[in-house]
């Protein structure tokens, strides 16, 4: 069949599936092996650990295999406030990030289209904070918002807050930190969506009797949905599991601990591996459920 090499279409059609099947498998192999080793195995290990019981010896940090599903009951009852707080913080921070990012992304992606140089510079500015470790940046915010810092001194002088009150350690401080740290993950997907937005549709909308507000609601916003969905997911998911901002060492206090803070404490301080694992698995399960419902309801199933 030497002629097949010259592209006889029917002959190819019969051969292609099996051949490409093997090639596809070969191409997928590295990825599949990677996922198996570094995603599936640890996940299984985590689930197994979450069901372990304390060792018979009673030594701290020693556990043996078991099927202690009660671990899950314990985390739900013990950590309910932290679980609720995590999702509350994540929701509020995601919404604030969206409100700040949308106009910014629209400005960079649509208004700056005619000036590509400026557009690129603005994008670099959006991701510029990533060049510095986010631990350092969060510490820096702690300094800025400390009671002796210029901002708090000014607030105290206006009498809005009494000197016995502090900003650090409050819900607002943690939400601020979370929003600040994750906002580029909202801006970038919004930008990529809005960058391709056809502004001629705005003219078509206003030509068809829609006021600027109506054009935004009926044309711009629906067409930005892919960016909004991916942005909110990219921000919400890591925030729900964040353990840095809410920690007492950074912007939080004992009253702001989140799921991540508790996992951190259980794993590294009390060495209660089963409880930490159960909390992690629970967090993952809740996020998967929330995200599926969210994506389904927003009508962008193809993201899943």
């Amino acid at each position: 069949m030497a002629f097949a090499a010259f592209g006889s279409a029917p002959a190819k059609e019969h051969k292609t599936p099996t051949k490409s099947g093997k090639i596809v498998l070969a191409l997928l192999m590295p990825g599949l092996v990677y996922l198996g080793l570094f995603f599936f195995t640890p996940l299984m290990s985590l689930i197994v650990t979450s069901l372990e019981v304390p060792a018979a010896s009673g030594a701290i940090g020693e556990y043996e295999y078991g099927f202690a599903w009660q671990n899950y009951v314990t985390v739900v009852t013990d950590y309910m406030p932290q679980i609720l707080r995590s999702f509350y913080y994540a929701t509020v921070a995601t919404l604030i990030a969206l409100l700040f990012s949308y106009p910014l992304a629209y400005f960079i992606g649509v208004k700056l289209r005619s000036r590509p140089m400026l557009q690129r510079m603005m994008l670099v500015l959006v991701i510029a904070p990533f060049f510095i470790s986010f631990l350092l940046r969060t510490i820096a915010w702690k300094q800025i918002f400390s009671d002796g810092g210029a901002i708090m001194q000014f607030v105290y002088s206006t009498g809005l807050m009494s000197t016995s009150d502090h900003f650090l350690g409050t819900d607002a401080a943690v939400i601020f930190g979370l929003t600040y740290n994750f906002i580029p993950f909202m801006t970038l997907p919004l930008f990529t969506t809005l960058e391709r937005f056809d502004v001629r549709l705005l003219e078509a909308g206003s030509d068809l009797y829609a006021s600027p507000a109506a054009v935004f609601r009926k044309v711009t916003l629906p067409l930005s949905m892919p960016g909004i969905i991916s942005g909110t997911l990219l921000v919400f998911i890591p925030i729900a599991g964040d353990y840095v901002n809410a920690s007492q060492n950074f912007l939080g206090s004992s009253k702001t601990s989140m799921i991540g803070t508790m996992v951190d404490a259980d794993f590294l301080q009390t060495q209660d591996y089963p409880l930490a694992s159960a909390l992690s698995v629970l967090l993952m399960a809740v996020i998967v459920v929330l995200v599926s419902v969210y994506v389904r309801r927003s009508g962008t199933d193809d993201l899943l």
Partner: protein
Amino acid sequence: MAIDFKPSGADLELVNVRKDFPGFTALQDMDLHIPAGEFFALLGPSGCGKTTTLRIVAGLEEPTAGQVLIGGKDVTASKPHERPVNTVFQSYALFPHMTILENVAFGLRQRKIEEPVKKAMDALNLVELGYAAERRPQQLSGGQQQRVALARALVNRPALLLLDEPLGALDLKLRRQMQIELKAIQMEVGLTFLHVTHDQEEAMDMADTVAVMNKGHIEQMGAPEALYERPKTAFVSKFLGQSNLFVGSIVDSSASSLSIEVGGHKITVPKDRAEKQTGKICIGVRPEKTTFHRTKPNLGSDHVVVGPGEITDIRFTGVSNQYLIDIPNVGDVTVFAQNVGISPVIELGENVWVSWKVEHSFGLSDLPVGNEDE
């Protein structure tokens, strides 16, 4: 058809409209009146200001000076969504996240008109796309999208429908078909159409009145036949069809005609067909009005004869043959001969004379580019 359109649209008036962009003037003091119910075409090359005119009427562009009146009402300060105008955009600009039906119903819903879906469906049926109502714009061909854009504009029964080169992206066959449909729809609904195009055939074929634009102003305006028979400027005579132009000083003037001398030949134009009657003028004739002769023809003073000249090019275009004849001291003259089998068989290099009736000459008000300063 099913849609109950108002009997006619409104008239449009532009008063001294001017538009400056940084660095150049797109429109210079344009005055225009389009009577209600007319199919009006703005014709011109790209960059002549025709699209700017349309965008100013739609409200998408603000004039630097002047007024826009629709149905006698000054709308210069109105926002696009407040004007009784709809546009069929060159890019169609259909909303990709909506079905065809929702696209068409968009304007109706914005104005809270009753039964938007039923009316949108009627409009889709008018453009014979009722079967595609639930599809998305991306699933339609260019021609179908164009018809959706037309339905989306028409369904609102605007006082004035603006067409921004909507047929530009279509292939020739579909384009001709859409031209016929568009004209039929306009006759049926009786709306005022303002059609912007650079395709002279399209403009002449569809419009009641054509305005030829050049460099931000209207060169000439009138019925297509009148524009073609009596172009008044060199630009119009070349942009609308082809012309043979001859420039010379007036050497003879009678009660009814003027003559110029070009390369030893006398070229005559009736006085009532000459825009300029003194000094150096330009006389033109359409190539299809001319004939050639192998021997010097003996014609009366009601004919113009030039020649002899050598045939330097012959083009067969199907319905006619186009001959290019180089006449010494005069230049190239183009002759179209109908391909009806009675014209003489002629070869490249032969020497011929060209003639036409004086009544087919036209005299321009200006001189072709390059002849102004001589």
